């Protein structure tokens, strides 16, 4: 099981801020997780439609899409940062 967090407009499009998911074992990287997310359809497909606008943190660290994911990870999806 992985803990998934969504922020800003990704949260709005996904229609959820936080969820626990158990993707198939073939999902071993962020990129594969995103593909699986999109396959769930609805708001998830919409949230991930423009992947160039999606940033990812695994266990509170910014990562690239080839970063591994595993059960127990906290994975956050969000748009480019606009703080400060």
């Amino acid at each position: 099981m992985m803990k998934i967090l969504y922020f800003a407009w990704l949260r709005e499009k996904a229609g959820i801020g936080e969820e626990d998911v158990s993707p198939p074992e073939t999902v071993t990287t962020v990129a594969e997780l995103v593909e699986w997310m999109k396959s769930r359809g609805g708001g998830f497909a919409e949230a991930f439609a423009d992947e160039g606008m999606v940033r990812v943190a695994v266990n509170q660290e910014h990562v690239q899409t080839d970063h591994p994911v595993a059960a127990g990870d906290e994975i956050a999806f969000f748009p480019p940062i606009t703080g400060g």
Partner: protein
Amino acid sequence: MIRVQAEDFDVGRELEKLSDGNHGVGGVCSFVGLVRDIAGDKPIQAMTLEHYPEMTELALAKIEAEAHDRWPLEETLIIHRYGRLEPGDRIVLVAAASAHREAAFEACHFLIDWLKTQAPFWKLEETPDGGQWVDARSSDDAAAERWVETKPAKSKPDAAE
């Protein structure tokens, strides 16, 4: 020092703490970011800052540690607010205290530039057309990029930084 909070802060008191009792500090450079009442050409009634609490303090601590690695600093400070803010409200305070002014300026500039691309905050602006998420700015990426190659400032003598 890092603080992430909904409440406003007292700039004078916070800056005073950076040099309080430390007579090695010759200069304190600070930047306060404020909510403007306009974005591009749209009026803004308010903005709401959302963040990723579990990650925010970690990200800010990394930014602060990086500044201390690069420049000879006595103290640094990052305070960032979240929640709903109105035009004129303070959003963020970054500051760097050093023996020398170049280090204070460069480190302070670095702190805000990196914070703008590294710390997980997102702004939702309230406009007459409804809420709009602020787009990331390529100018912020460029500003952060500039520090990728930057070397620390050199030290200098004299009692007033």
